């Protein structure tokens, strides 16, 4: 490696700080009933939150927390196969995250997970892309697998690339590897859910 690129550990570190700041603004806590919480991503700039379906207990009162303030939210749609849920949270807003095309992902590139692992709020974890797992039939990206340390509380939070683009939504841990739903599938899910509601 070119030493000057890594710059100095300090330059990388200040980048990570910027990364953390961006994600802090884009991520909320999701709480449903009395159970533990997960993370969620503010979608489309305002009013919507995407999280994992398994973070939302059906029928239980739903709240999203942003900077320590809790607000009520409603579930708009679920996609159990992709483990996704779309929530309406009218008074909430955050930055727009660009979507990263999973076809352009390369094993070994840096990825970052943001969430609230084991209740620790706004924690950033760094790792590398491990592989893109494809659907056996359609060959479309089905899961993004990353060598990044996740824990309960990361569920529903973002996995982003080195430029802060959304790679996926962290959903589970398999054999120690983080597994995320590709951002493209999330986008499709949201678009379908909204058009069905509009119709």
């Amino acid at each position, binding site marked *: *490696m*070119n030493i000057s*690129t*890594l*710059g100095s550990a300090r*330059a*990388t570190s*200040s*980048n*990570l700080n*910027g*990364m953390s*700041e*961006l994600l802090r603004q884009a991520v909320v806590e999701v709480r449903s009933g009395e159970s533990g919480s997960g993370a969620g991503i503010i979608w*489309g*700039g305002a009013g919507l939150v995407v999280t994992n379906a398994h973070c939302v207990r059906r029928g239980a009162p739903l709240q999203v927390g942003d900077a320590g303030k809790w607000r009520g939210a409603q579930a708009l749609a679920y996609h159990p196969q992709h483990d996704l849920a779309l929530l309406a949270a009218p008074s909430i807003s955050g*930055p*727009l*995250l*660009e*979507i990263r095309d999973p076809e352009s992902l*390369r*094993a*070994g*590139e*840096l990825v970052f997970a943001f969430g609230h692992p084991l209740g620790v709020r706004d924690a950033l974890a760094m*790792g*590398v*892309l*491990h*592989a893109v797992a494809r659907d056996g039939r359609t060959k479309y990206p089905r899961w993004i*697998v990353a*060598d990044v340390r996740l824990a309960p509380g990361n569920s529903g939070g973002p996995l982003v*690339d*080195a*430029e*802060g*683009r959304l790679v996926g939504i962290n959903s589970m841990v398999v*054999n*120690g*590897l983080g597994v995320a739903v590709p951002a493209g599938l999330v986008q499709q899910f949201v678009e379908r859910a909204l058009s069905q509601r509009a119709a």
Partner: protein
Amino acid sequence: MSPSKPGSASTTLAELSSQLAAAVETASNFIVAIHARRRIPSSGIVWRDGVIVSASHTVKRDDETPVTLPNGETTTATIVGRDSATDLIALRVKGAKSHIAPRADADAVRVGSLVLAVGRPGRDVAASFGIISAIGEGWRTWQGARIDRVLRLDVAVYDGFSGGPLVDASGAVLGLNNSALARGTPMALPGAAVDRVVDELLERGHVRRPFIGVAVQPVALSVSLVKQHELTRDTALLIVSVADGSPADKAGIFVGDVLLEGDGKALSRPTDLLDVLSTIRSGDSIKLKYLRGGAVKSGSVTPSDRGGRE
């Protein structure tokens, strides 16, 4: 959605990210998948022209072994030899042309160096990332092989990664990853150690490991014995078994003898005996000094080569 980026300083991070991905791409040109066990295939490195190395424990067959080459072609490899002490195996593939793994300068590796573990646990390569957490000097595997330097990793070595390379940020090979050799803790055998084993495997199909055929246990010697015989140490090695027909048996060593010295070096731990054995050349003998019935005796033993019958 319109883009939003974490500040202008993000270029450093993006460059690092793309260099890491490029390193994995470079490495993917010399990593093969070896299909010789159930479930997940293991990884192998194209070490020399037509020669693949991998972790021996992952290759659970001794005949023709299917191998997926970096270009996606599948071919068969034949096993050249194994060394269970370092858990290495060498295989030969015919015909297929692949890149030979470029080697990194091993002396440049330091604790804290950024490294990637790359494997081919299927058709595509996969990667994990971390740092060298420690460098062990003079480490001995539980099977008895002595390795000058071993790289301890703060890098996850996932299923199918054993036998694959540990690479630096340019994609050059630092070592061969193994999750089994150090009982589950991720480590890598440095390239130089792999080279030594591969040389021997190519030459004679196994690695020579001189043995004399005894089992020993350290015992404390009484103060009077130490004084009487002017010994330098107060522990020595009690012979607890002698294999029939072994070099020790032929040299007249009995169970109950206590080894004091080998070639003039004090023997107080079992590894001392292994150290003496590993320094001699094939056919040479070792001068032994031992206690029998309270008297110091001397004799010599000519180790034989165990490597071929592991």
